[in-house]
């Protein structure tokens, strides 16, 4: 067994040092009734590398891989080109196989990366401080609502109809046994700005409102100016929480910070991280300086060592549950360290110049495709302002259309019927995302296939 260094003579010699007759003697505390006396019969025995490779390779081969087909799926996870050097760096044993940097003297590599990551994220989101990452965008959003409650000592969150429905579901799950109140808007496929209920949100803010949660670009792709909403929140003593699920958009658009957000959360997968069928991803979380001690999640801070040299440590950990136990600010006690590293490396390769270029390219591709598809008879482009994702209204229910496109080798987007099961008003909607990875040939293939399916 290739991962086990002990040989049988090693084991016997060690048992002798311990003074145990055999290995069973070390398991004497286990009740007789629960002792397994042999390997579990329903499972196979150990296997060579090539056997494992064949078995997993066969499963992998059954999936339609994004890079091999015209691909336009988004909805909170985006296919971008990740430079080869990113993966090389995250596979360095010193990053990959390191533990959480609780011993800072021998973890400055990870710690400096986190400090740089926090700075990059804060600047990107237009905020003062960011944490060292969280599980993903959806759990980060839930943490933001809890944080707003701690800051405002109010319990009601107003959630825009434009927030990703899975994110809303997560929030609902985690508030079902608390006395938090969560009010969520009802989405509709209205022309021009689907999911945009800013006016209604502003009208709904009251003295019980802890925060208003909006997504930008929203789940339908629509982009909105949030500055008026921020003013309305602040006037009522509530916080504005902004969710960003496609952070590449921030290379082309005003940041949530510029529009007045108090907490910005996001899904950072787009930079440096692959699609991975949904995980691991990277929750981003940033806020204003004044709220930093209410912020959940791991934080890295600068300090000096005994020789006065600059160094980095995990800090403000008194907020965390291994110290605070039941009084902790959050249940979360890990970050997505390696995903944060990948984000940071990719962002370093891009730099501001590259990020802006990348964002422009995404937007231009999306505009081109939106205009082409919008000209197909019966298809309406519902989203008039967007970044790299937009919603189409089809003449028929979208869910079977998406499947028929897949049958033709085109992954053409997401039906709103999948995201909002049972909501008839949305079932002709199809969400289409376009990134720098799409080629003209991909556009042609998509247009032809959609033409054919709708014909």
């Amino acid at each position, binding site marked *: *067994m290739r991962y086990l260094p002990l040989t049988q003579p090693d084991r016997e010699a060690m048992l002798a040092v311990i003074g145990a007759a055999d290995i069973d003697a070390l398991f004497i505390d286990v009740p007789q009734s629960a002792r397994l006396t042999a390997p579990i019969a329903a499972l196979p025995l150990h296997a060579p590398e090539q056997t494992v490779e064949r078995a997993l390779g066969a499963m992998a081969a059954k999936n339609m891989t994004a890079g091999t087909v015209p691909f336009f799926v988004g909805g909170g*996870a985006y*296919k971008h080109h990740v430079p080869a050097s990113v993966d090389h760096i995250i596979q360095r044993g010193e990053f990959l196989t*390191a533990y959480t940097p609780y011993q800072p*003297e021998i973890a400055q590599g990870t710690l400096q990366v986190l400090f740089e990551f926090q700075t990059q994220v804060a600047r990107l989101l237009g905020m003062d401080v960011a944490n060292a990452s969280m599980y993903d965008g959806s759990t980060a959003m839930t943490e933001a609502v809890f944080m707003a409650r701690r800051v405002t000592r109010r319990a009601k969150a107003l959630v825009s109809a434009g927030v990703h429905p899975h994110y809303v579901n997560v929030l609902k799950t985690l508030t079902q046994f608390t006395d938090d109140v969560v009010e969520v808007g009802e989405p509709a496929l209205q022309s021009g700005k689907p999911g945009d209920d800013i006016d209604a949100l502003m009208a709904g803010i009251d003295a019980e409102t802890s925060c208003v949660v909006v997504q930008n670009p929203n789940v339908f792709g629509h982009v909105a100016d949030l500055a008026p909403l921020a003013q309305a929140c602040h006037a009522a003593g509530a916080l504005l929480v902004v969710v960003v699920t496609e952070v590449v958009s921030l290379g082309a658009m005003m940041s949530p910070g510029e529009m007045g957000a108090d907490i910005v959360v996001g899904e950072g997968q787009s930079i440096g991280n692959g699609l991975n069928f949904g995980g691991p991803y990277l929750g981003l979380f940033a806020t204003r300086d004044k709220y930093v001690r209410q912020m959940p999640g791991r934080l890295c801070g600068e300090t000096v060592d005994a020789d006065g040299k600059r160094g980095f440590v995990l800090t403000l950990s008194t907020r965390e549950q291994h110290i605070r136990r039941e009084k902790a600010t959050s249940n979360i006690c890990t970050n997505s360290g*390696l995903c944060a590293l990948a984000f940071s490396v990719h962002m370093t390769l*891009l730099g501001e110049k590259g990020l802006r*270029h990348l964002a*422009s390219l995404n937007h231009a591709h999306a505009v081109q495709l939106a205009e082409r598809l919008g000209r197909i008879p019966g298809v309406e482009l519902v989203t008039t302002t967007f970044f790299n994702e937009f919603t189409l209204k089809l003449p028929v229910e979208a869910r079977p259309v998406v499947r028929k496109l897949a049958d033709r080798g085109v992954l053409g987007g997401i039906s709103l019927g999948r995201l909002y099961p049972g909501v008839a008003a949305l079932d002709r909607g199809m969400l289409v995302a376009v990134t720098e990875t799409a080629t003209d040939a991909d556009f042609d293939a998509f247009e032809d296939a959609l033409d054919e399916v709708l014909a």
Partner: protein
Amino acid sequence: LEEPLLFERGAVDRCGVDLDDVPVVQDRLGGLARTAPINLPGLSEPETVRHYTRLSRQNYAIDLGIFPLGSCTMKHNPRLNEKMARLPGFADIHPLQPQPTVQGALQLIDTLATWLKLLTGMPEVAMSPKAGAHGELCGMLAIRAALEARGDARSVVLVPESAHGTNPATAAFCGYAVENIPANARGRVDVEALLARLGPDVAAVMITNPNTCGLFEPDMVAICDAVHAAGGFVYCDGANFNAIVGRVRPGDLGIDAMHINLHKTFSTPHGGGGPGSGPVVFSAALAQFAPLPFVRKTKDGFELVEEAQAKASSDHDHSFGRMVAFHGQMGMFVRALAYMMSHGADGLRQVAEDAVLNANYILASLKDVYTAPFAATGPCMHEALFSDDFLEGTGLTTLDLAKAMIDEGFHPMTMYFPLVVHGAMLVEPTETESRASLDQLIGAMRSIAERMLADPDAWRTSPHLAPRRRLDETAAARKPVLRYTPGRDAA
């Protein structure tokens, strides 16, 4: 050479990628185009590779040496797992692709779920939790949902002193009051105190087994029976499953829910602090409350059951809902399954045996020098617990000893945990350390202890040989500097 910060090296007009030219289009950003600078510095690819390669060399890692971190299970991370997780068929598929295009991915999740159920002897598993603490939350949400479903408004969760720190936080998060149950002199749960506290207000008991003293709770079956008789549930923290995998199925002990840290027992990398993955197994009593989504095998293949279908599903109609945006840590699932298939049923059993053997070897080899509070009670499981009592009078503590180990070339053990032992040092070697590696560690620990007792004053300022000396954590917390600000650091 010291490595400067990215912000001290890079420039906003420097770039390590090439991109296609941007087609000219009329923008549709609705007047929200960014005008202000973002101030994100970039580097060319050669500079980027060098920056991160240099930084990486300031880290300790499993690839460099043993991480004897009790309760953290830092074992070897096989490279086959990394290779498998990068197969485009797993790494380059989208969570919302039509299900017929991801049948292999669903099969992988279902296969891993089957392994986890068989290894734990439990009938159901929730795959989506993203880390151990997230798994605890999943388990406790299911318990609360089950109690709510039967209209049983219990209010208290009992947590033994020796529990992981995340347990109380999780219980509180589900709206429960937490009461501690003391440990007995043998480092186990005080069963009498526990049984005495059971009653109609107790929703659940959260037990860590093997516990954080590295000991198996011998009365686990009796505890589970008593909790069930009192109408409550037993949550078992599975962080230490590495000690018993293949030797004990937690389901046979009577528990109701347990998370499994794929990054501990099943070797997915810690990555400097994540991502983790914490699937949760459930007893029959809790199965129908498990979260969405889940994978179901049908006659036509595999189905990912999301919101709408769940309502129509007889076995999951009481699901407490969705915990994350998508389906969990697919990348970790691939790695964990590759590891399980590599070891097989026989190898996984050997894992537990070697992990326990290695820990007992360390305990036996050091207990004459180090204080070993529970060594007299019998063998330990996968980790050996010591305390700094033997340093009494020197003024030296566990912290000094830990920092001294850094200068010897080792990552320190877990310090000051579990809380039930003063000045605790928890050493977990795992099964992937060789006897030679253990002997090196034992030799260094003996040598440090002997030299500390002989000349205490020489040991108050370690480490001296690491990339940094002791860092001022107090200053860092008092006035936090959490981002780079130009000029502030000019030397």
